[in-house]
């Protein structure tokens, strides 16, 4: 079966300096892989390089078997969730979720209808017309999840998505997210420095230094 995401001999770098080489990672359909590593170890750079946000330093990225290494960010089919929800402040919650659908050419009303469905699904029923600054931290991160899933990316990358939340909320949201990802059959790479979080979310837990060749 073709992996959803595969990296071959990927090199990571920051400002032109390569700090890791030979990264080979493979994520099967509907599989959730957690990558553990202390902060500053290059987890975000790995996700950024896969998504195309950070310039690549060599190696190949394949999404659904297709080489995307030289494709721009918006054509890679990769979703990305950051530590901060980074909701677009000038849009309503509903239009945030509908954004990716609109970019795919879905008509406004249809995009909004599907956004509302996704909001129901992340337990935010009826909050569609809220402004983003009216949400709590946990609600905002749920919206970010719905927004990232809306355009149906091949693989979703989560960069420490819960670390800005308090411990109790973090545990609850981690379990919820894992359930949601499985229900949607989404392959995901979840990086974190928290082993308990990694184990509660993932099918497979890897240490970042194990990936470096």
């Amino acid at each position, binding site marked *: 079966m073709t992996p959803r995401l595969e990296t071959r001999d990927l090199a990571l770098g920051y400002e032109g300096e390569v700090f890791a080489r030979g990264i080979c990672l493979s994520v099967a359909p509907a599989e959730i892989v957690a990558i553990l590593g202390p902060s500053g170890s290059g987890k975000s750079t790995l996700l950024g390089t896969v998504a195309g946000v950070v310039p690549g330093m060599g190696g190949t990225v394949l999404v659904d078997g297709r080489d995307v290494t030289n494709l*721009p960010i*918006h054509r890679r089919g990769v979703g990305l969730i950051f530590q*901060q929800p*980074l909701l*677009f*402040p*000038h849009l309503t919650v509903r239009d945030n979720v509908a954004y990716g659908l609109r970019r795919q050419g879905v008509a406004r009303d249809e995009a909004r209808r599907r956004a509302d469905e996704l909001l129901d699904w992340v337990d935010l029923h009826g909050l569609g017309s809220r402004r983003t600054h009216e949400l709590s931290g946990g609600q905002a991160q749920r919206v970010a999840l719905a927004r990232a899933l809306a355009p149906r*990316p091949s693989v979703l990358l989560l960069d420490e998505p819960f670390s800005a939340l308090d411990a109790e909320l973090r545990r609850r949201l981690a379990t919820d997210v894992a359930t949601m990802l499985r229900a949607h059959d989404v392959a995901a790479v979840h990086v974190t420095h928290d082993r308990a979080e990694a184990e509660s979310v993932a099918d497979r837990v890897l240490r970042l230094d194990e990936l470096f060749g």
Partner: protein
Amino acid sequence: MTTPRWLPWVWLLPAAFLAAFLAYPLVHLATTIASGSGGFALTRLASPALWQVAALATVQALLSTLLALVAGLPIANVVSRYRFRGRALAQALVTVPFVLPTVVVALAFRSLFGSGLPQGFLLVVLAHAYVNLAVVVRIVGAQWSQHDPNLENVARTLGATRWQAFTDVTLPSLRPSIASSAAVVFVFSFTSLGIVLLVGDSATRTLEVQILRQTSVLLDFPGAAASALVQLVIVTIVLLAGAVATRRSPTRVMAPPALRPVPERGLGRAAVYATVMFAGVIVLAPVAALIAASFRTSSGLALSWWSSLGSVDAGTTRLGSPAAALATSFGFALLTALIAGVVGGLAAVAVLAPGRARLVSVLAIVPLGVSAATLGLGLLLAYGRPPTDLRDSVLLVPIAHSLVAVPLVVAVVAPALRGTDNRLGVVAASLGARPTRAFLTTYGSVLRVVMLASAALAGAVSLGEFGAASFLTRTGSPTVPVQIVRLLGRPGEQSAGVAAALAVILVALTLAVVLIVDRIGRSELGTAS
């Protein structure tokens, strides 16, 4: 800390100054107009000529604003978000056009284009965009540096192209700063005087130019009052609209993201450096052209304009020598620094006073809203003829310049005082210091620094001010900007050459003051706070 006994009374002097030199002349102006034989000003509002000028000035200001935004946004992006060698220099460079006297900018643009293509209306628009580049770069840049680049990255992963990410995400979050800078640029361009007089053709006018013409050439005071009224209304509407757009911003300020490195290679890298070069060229080209003009004679490059600065007949019969104008301007600048420093300083200290005394620090901002020509005219009518003829006393111009500079002094000093930790004074008081001693322990060092800096700025304002001075200087002893304008009104290459030399001196003086102020501010305030 017990407050010093004099603190509740610091408002007295600034209030008296504003009453005597702002409120009284304006009231005097209004009653003169109302009782004049030319008829009440309101009936003049029906004049089609007035609305024609207003419409033309509106179009001109809109185009100037648009051009300043188009040129300023890429520069704001580069200098506020990328880390590269020479970034601080680039930032300082962009500020230069804004601090140059308008008369100097006008002359620089005339020197740059000569009899070349952009003339009249178009050249006015170019010059206004040039002056206001810093407004866009500073205001929008401040917000852009707070903008998390990952917001665009999120949009990109959701399927947006680079351009869509910019228009969908970046532009909307910059909207408040774009709106407020656009409002400021519009108002500056709409009320511009020196630039329009010097580079505009006879068809290109602002209401400010109209006011000057109506009062000094046509002696049509009701007409001038009507022009001033229309200008005031339009300016107020635009500033209010800018303020409303600024308030509607749900963006939360987080810690600003770090400056990012310039892209390694490719188009991105080229774009960043091209933008920096572009900024450098457009800022420096007019100044370079001005310097060149001060050396250019019909028989090649020479120092003749510079060497004739001291002579009375340097194309300036009846005007006095250019050197004398420099001496006059310098004297006025010193007096302005003193008056504006004391008046503005006391008005700023009033923010620390209890109760209503604080009001004076707000009132001191009012002169900003009154046009320079209106200020000049009001002072001339109130104090320029018997029984109170101050024109021979050398004080009238510095007083007018102080009115222009006081808001600036308050804007610099008041926030510094408000931001000072007053626990030092509490400690001093607990050690037995009297209230005044404790006050000085707390605020003394900050006051010394910001007063020095703001007084120097007031001096720089005076050096370059043209609008009010054009009403108030006597024929025989003009200030440098007035002298430049008069020289340019005469034929002959000597007049133009000497004007260019004088303008170069103004550039040097203004830049020196701004650099010194910047140095003082950076070194001393850094340690004081």
